[in-house]
């Protein structure tokens, strides 16, 4: 049963990572592409982490896998946000909201 779960989790991880890469290619703007970058930081790594923990249990390898995926999970939103701000600064000169974008 555990072996089947590992297989299923790995298949989900592979499909998620490949779909993220394909989505990056298909989308037209940088903002759209960044959504797929975010997905690659979360879905696939978490499935691989679950597969590793099911396969080996809470060993040194398991703790290292938790650290790796934890770093990715923390890094993803920060890096994607910084990239989106850099893109907006390049296009508009200022990452802040324009007058027509202000929320009342």
């Amino acid at each position: 049963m555990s072996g089947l779960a590992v297989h299923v989790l790995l298949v989900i991880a592979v499909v998620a990572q490949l779909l993220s890469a394909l989505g990056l290619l298909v989308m037209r703007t940088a903002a759209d592409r960044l959504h797929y970058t975010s997905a690659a930081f979360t879905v696939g790594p978490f499935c691989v982490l679950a597969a590793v923990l099911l396969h080996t249990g809470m060993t040194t390898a398991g703790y290292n896998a938790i650290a790796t995926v934890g770093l990715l999970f923390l890094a993803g939103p920060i890096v994607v946000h910084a990239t989106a701000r850099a893109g907006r600064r390049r296009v508009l000169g200022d990452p802040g909201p324009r007058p027509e974008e202000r929320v009342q």
Partner: protein
Amino acid sequence: MNEFLLAATVMLAGFIPVGIVCLREGPIDALAALELAGALATTILLCLSEGFGRSFYFDVPVICAALTWVSGLVFARFLGRHI
């Protein structure tokens, strides 16, 4: 070849669309592709570490994840300020 090595091998195909975007699109699009490549490489290294069954191999994806974080922030700051 066990299931983890197979998964790592199949995931390598993800570098093809990422490379195409890096080569053909603008700097911010290429940076998004580079960040995705970092996440993909970390996941592949995680699978390879488990597939080879050596616990000390797991240090490599930890370093790769940390460097993906730092390099993404450095490139984002560089592209947003100086070009």
